[in-house]
């Protein structure tokens, strides 16, 4: 069923083939991913859902090049990244991917601007260019007047906006959002979600990991996982742009 859901009409950006991830917990083996095959098209908006322990976090770590498969293949923009070393994976994260986390994960001692600049720093941009870009992004997420503040001086919603601005700094192909509204009240959550939808409309591929159906509803595709396998996929690729 999952294979049928994939469409070849659209350019794919991420593809897992028979992906296995096995963790060793002491003597026990945990099969976090048990043969997953799925592909994600450019410009699509996915929600990965499932109860805890279903493998959705592992899925995101693998897709986000933060972890490697035990077996199987993972193609990112047509390149097999499943066998790459740590440095090359870092390079891929830096150039292709952006991350948004439930707990925002801003660096507390850095100002908003410096947090947003972080990917640019590792990309080797010079200070004035990255400062300009950071200010531009801060304005884009509605925090143009907060660039000099530290994260602790911001509200949850503002912090998540900074995180989104940071995720956008390297102009990534794919943005991963791990429970992006989990720590926010519902109104703020909706605002963040709207921001993500807007980014999707601008052409970014967005993959949200969430267990809230209300959030997942906004995604074009919903991937339900259970026991390390794809349970079902809702929504169709035909709905994607």
């Amino acid at each position, binding site marked *: 069923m999952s294979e049928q859901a994939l469409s070849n009409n659209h350019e794919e950006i991420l593809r897992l083939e028979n992906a296995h991830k096995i963790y060793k917990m002491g003597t026990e083996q945990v099969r976090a991913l048990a043969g997953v095959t799925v592909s994600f098209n450019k410009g699509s908006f996915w929600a990965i859902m499932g109860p805890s322990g279903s493998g959705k976090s592992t899925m995101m*770590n693998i897709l*986000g090049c*933060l*972890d490697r498969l035990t077996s199987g293949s993972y193609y990112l923009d047509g390149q097999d990244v499943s066998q790459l070393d*740590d*440095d090359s994976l*870092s*390079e*891929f*994260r*830096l*150039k292709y*991917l952006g*991350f948004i*986390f439930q707990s925002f*994960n*801003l*660096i507390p*001692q850095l100002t908003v601007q410096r947090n947003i600049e*972080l*990917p640019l720093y*590792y*990309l*080797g941009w*010079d*200070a004035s260019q990255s400062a300009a870009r950071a200010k531009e992004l801060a304005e884009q997420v509605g925090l143009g007047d907060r660039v000099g503040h530290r994260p602790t001086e911001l509200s949850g919603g503002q912090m998540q906006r900074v995180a989104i601005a*940071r995720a956008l700094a*390297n102009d990534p192909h794919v943005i991963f959002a791990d429970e992006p509204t989990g720590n926010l009240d519902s109104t703020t959550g909706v605002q963040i979600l709207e921001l993500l939808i807007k980014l999707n409309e601008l052409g970014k591929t967005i993959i949200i990991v969430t267990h809230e159906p209300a959030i997942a509803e906004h995604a074009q595709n919903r991937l339900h996982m259970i026991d390390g396998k794809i349970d079902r996929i809702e929504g169709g690729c035909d709905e994607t742009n």
Partner: protein
Amino acid sequence: MRQTRITRNIWLGIENLLLHKLRSLLTMLGVVFGVGSVVAMLSVGEGASKEALEQIRKLGSNNIIVSSVKSAEEEQTSIQHSHMSIYGLTYEDHHRIAESFSDIQQTAPVKLMRKDSRLYERAMELRVVGTTPEWFKLVPREILAGRVLLQSDQDKQAPVAVLTEFGARKILATEHTIGQTISIGGDQFEIVGIVKSESGQAGNIQIPDQQVDVYIPIEVARVYFGDIFTKRTSGGDEREMVELHQIIVQVDEPKKVESIAAGIERMLEQFHKKKDYVVSVPLALLKQAEATKRTFNIVLGSIAGISLLVGGIGIMNIMLASVTERTREIGIRRAIGAKRRQIIYQFLIETVVLSTMGGIIGLGIGVLIPVLITYFSGMITVITLKGILLPLLISMTIGILFGLYPAVRAANVDPIVALRHE
């Protein structure tokens, strides 16, 4: 570009350290003390060797000084009333020394006595040095006016006198005084010159000349004043007969100094029943002084070493704690795309900044210590460029050495685990 990147990294490091000012300061202390003692040690050592060179210059590196001393038995018997002690070097000794060794370049016999001197209305007690023209070659001093003693003075037994700067000033002798007559112990001498003097101690050797010297030809001294001296003590007059008080010997090469000194010692042993002379070798004593200072340096060096080690361990400790504390930050940076070596670099720079700042503070303290030492003890200390650069280099090395392990630990943090870290 590269330059600005490094400066940026350094600034980041400084910013991070400033977040925990007290912690950073305390962490630095070990390096501060370590570097401080290294700087102090180097400047004291440098001062010591400069002082040694200065002493060698004053005493003459090729010189051997043979002095008359009253032997212990003589010291005992002279307490008895109306006893005349006869001791010390003789004219004969001087000739023997001058003629027996081919490696001896020149010698100067010295006869010393204190005499009241008078120039017009000004009177003071001067130390009369009866010697030969060689003295001025063995104890080279700047001529301020006139000339020094000449061989012709010696031959003619001319009653001429050369004053030293300080003594001359005391009795108001200037260059205009040259050619005038000074009364020394009641005898008239013509002032022919004024020389500079370098008085003081060098190690435990008396510098041959003093500030209140007046030099006259030795033959004149012998004829005018004789060999018997009367010293006034509380127990009455004490009479001594000493022919020569000193013989200064110059050897042609510094490396021969010690063997010739031993030879002189052996020779004098044969002709003197009592040990009423002392052979001192400035070079050997300076070497000894340097050895003492080397020991001092080893002690100070060990303190510095231990302090630097402790400082380094302190830095490592705090950096390890910092890595744990900032695990989440490391995870964020890694997730964004920082490579392991960039994380290593970041933490290493922080450690190096920390230790170098400690080094700079230590340098300040280390510069202050020698200044205080000089102020309170008068010991010469010298701060050289090497004495500043070396400790800074050491502190940076400490930063790299003890920062590497925490930095590698930081880089090996698993980003997934780190991101979940609370």
